[in-house]
């Protein structure tokens, strides 16, 4: 997470965002994949609208996590907006892995607190350092985004054949659409590959 935060801060500043803008994303969006997606779209010369749409679409999985967590966390009143901020791939996985609701709440809170601090401090460090280290590419920092995406994608690829088909189709559509559509648009178009996955039943049944 610390390395990803450093890489995000560096990637954001290299893509043309300011240090403050990078930090606002980490503080308020607090969802690595969407943040990397926006920075990647800007770095690739993509339109702001397409980059934003891709980032928000990717954040849609957090809504699904929220639904899974709602019953466990039972966050009410002022706690709910705070708990919402803490929903990430990591905190959800950790909370859902606990045996009971009390342990899930504690695990969620601890993961949220430690990762939120790490993510934001490392974003700031990466953003401030980006201008000084010269080329982030010489440190391989431009690969951190794709590698993080792959890390998120991996368990989904292992969960079934439809997932693998959707991933292949999404990648093919995005690359195929690149020469013929405005920058940033191919990723959005690729989201429609998910519709193809609906035509085959999931390999795994039951609640996730």
């Amino acid at each position: 997470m610390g390395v990803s935060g450093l890489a995000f801060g560096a990637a954001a500043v290299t893509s043309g965002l300011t240090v403050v803008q990078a930090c606002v994303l980490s503080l308020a969006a607090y969802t690595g994949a969407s943040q990397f997606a926006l920075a990647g779209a800007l770095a690739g010369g993509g339109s702001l609208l397409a980059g934003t749409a891709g980032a928000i679409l990717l954040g849609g999985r957090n809504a699904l996590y929220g639904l899974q967590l709602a019953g466990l966390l039972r966050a009410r009143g002022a706690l709910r907006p705070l708990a919402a901020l803490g929903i990430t791939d990591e905190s959800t996985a950790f909370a859902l892995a606990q045996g009971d609701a009390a342990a899930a709440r504690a695990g969620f809170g601890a993961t949220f607190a430690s990762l939120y601090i790490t993510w934001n401090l490392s974003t700031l460090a990466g953003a401030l350092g980006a201008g000084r280290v010269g080329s982030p590419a010489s440190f391989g920092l431009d690969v951190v985004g794709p590698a993080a995406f792959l890390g998120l994608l991996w368990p989904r690829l292992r969960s079934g054949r439809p997932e693998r088909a959707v991933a292949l189709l999404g990648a093919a559509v995005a690359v195929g659409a690149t020469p013929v559509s405005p920058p940033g648009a191919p990723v959005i178009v690729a989201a429609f590959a998910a519709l193809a996955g609906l035509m085959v039943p999931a390999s795994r049944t039951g609640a996730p």
Partner: protein
Amino acid sequence: MPGAWRAVLATAVGCYALKLAGLTVPGWLLGNPRVRRLAELIPVALLAALIAVQVATAGRSVSVDIPRLAGLGAAVAALLLRAPFLAVIIAAAGTAAALRALGVT
């Protein structure tokens, strides 16, 4: 960069609102299995598309960045070895950095 603030704020507000909506909306909204399945599959398509675009395109042309592709290969190897997330990231970045230091472009 004009407009960058708008993109940053829209992304921040949009991503946060989705998290809050998940905690707030009643569960029956995702009771429809097809809607739930689509919500699971869209990130799969998007993540794969993002990887492909960042590794295999430059601007509006299709071209593979060799160090980036090799870095991703190292990430696959690390994932197959069930390495932790951090090790996957370091393997990917380290491989790309090493190849570039050797002059591979």
